[in-house]
């Protein structure tokens, strides 16, 4: 306790020292605005999502398939991934998290599950929601399928998928996803 450094006391003009409730904090809200653009490859991906089709891009060097795709391979640094691969909307849960804490602005009811889902044919898990499932039963290896929004609500956004839910298949073999955990 004796090592705690405290500021030396101030001498104040009378006009200030007579004030009972000094200001102790100030509000400084700030908003900075941008027009965000994700680039060609993510845009193509999202347009396809609006047509209810998931896609990935394949690296010509390491042959990994990335979803969502970018123009470069994050493993090799190869700068063009020209091969676009159609992917199913089915995959394996490689990891998950049960959220029990309510926070300001949260739209979901707790508890809910966020999961990493390895879409069949891809090499990198996609993050999304798991619903229509008892949170106690969620586990790695669980097979899940996408539930899409109504036709009229589809758009170039991953929110076109409402959530994923178990599809009833037996658990995926550990070897099929052990490189992606």
């Amino acid at each position, binding site marked *: 306790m004796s090592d705690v450094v405290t500021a030396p006391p101030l001498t104040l003009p009378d006009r200030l020292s007579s004030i009972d409730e000094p200001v102790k904090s100030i509000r400084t809200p700030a908003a*900075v*605005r941008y027009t965000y653009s*994700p*680039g060609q490859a993510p845009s193509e991906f999202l347009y396809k999502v609006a047509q209810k089709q998931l896609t990935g891009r394949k690296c010509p060097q390491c042959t990994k398939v990335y979803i969502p795709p*970018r123009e*470069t391979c994050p493993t090799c*640094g190869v*700068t063009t991934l020209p091969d676009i691969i159609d992917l199913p909307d089915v995959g394996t849960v490689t990891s998950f998290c049960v959220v029990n804490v309510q926070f300001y602005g949260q739209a979901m009811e707790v508890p809910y599950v966020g999961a990493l889902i390895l879409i069949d044919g891809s090499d990198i898990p996609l993050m999304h929601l798991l619903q229509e499932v008892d949170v106690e039963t969620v586990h790695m290896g669980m097979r899940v399928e996408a539930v899409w929004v109504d036709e009229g609500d589809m758009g170039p956004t991953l929110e076109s998928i409402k959530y994923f839910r178990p599809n009833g298949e037996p658990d995926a073999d550990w070897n099929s996803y052990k490189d992606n955990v």
Partner: protein
Amino acid sequence: MRDVAIIAFAQTKHRRSYEGTSEVEFLAPVLQEVQAKAGLEKKDIDFVCSGSSDYLAGQAFSFVVTLDAYGPWPPITESHVDMDGAWALYEAWVKMQTGKIDTALIYAYGKSSPGSIRRVLTRQLEPYYTQPLWPDSVALAALQARVGLDAGTWTEEQMAEVAATSRRNAKGNPFAQVVDDAEPATLLSKDYFVDPLRVHDCPPITDGAAAVIMVAGDKAKELTDRPAWIRGIDHRIDPAALGVRDLTVSPSAQLAAEKAGVADGNVDVAELHAPFTHQEIILRNALGLGDGVDVNPSGGALAANPVMTAGLIRFGELADRISRGEADRGVAHATSGACLQQNLVAVLEGE
């Protein structure tokens, strides 16, 4: 002190906007190019250090996403500064002095096009008294320019000369953005933008990226005929509050120049990171550069100002000139903060 040299440099063609292209997309080719120029591959690079700004990108940890441009697998030793890449270079230089690494790839990038760069830069200001007024980067530079005009330290004509020279020099720089033959008189005939600054006194809004490779010791000589050796490097900072500073001088640039040993020899070329015309005059004075010094042959930040990158580019441009034999000894400078608050100065020399 361990000898460290810059042996390769690459940059994008700097543009008003790379809209539609992500940072990863426009940076990746630069990283490929600089490694090819150095004759090094990922496995030869001991350390990667980058400079960029999350506030510029509008995303926390944006620099982590951008690492995709390098392809960080197998796992790499990496660091980042939310500052101009010149400070990433400084970090790599320090790490080399410890002997822990021998090679480093330093890169930097910035896209000003998605947002309002003038508003984004207010986020670096003192938060209680200053930020809530949102005094933009041009307004603050304008206040600094006025002090010098009133004191006779510079004139609007001298400021226009700086701009005209930068744009003319940029004709020799295929990567520059603002390039022309405008005469000072023509520039001076334009209306004020933020009085006393006209548009030509201000940096362009730029999207761009750059990278350098630094190597320690004899390995530099194996990789290139004429490495650009860093003979001295130092950085200093002035108070944040504008009102307590004499805005016509730069004590931090002067001190950094002394510590870096600028005056220990002849200066052929100086690449000064002066985003505003009057600031080039302040820096010339602070660094003691006489008329014989070729200042900003690349065009400087007035010809292309990819924020977070323009300082690193000064190092690359100087290093390239040294390695081509166009200069023997020069000064590279980078700045950060409002009105030249923080300054990094280095002396580079060929053998």
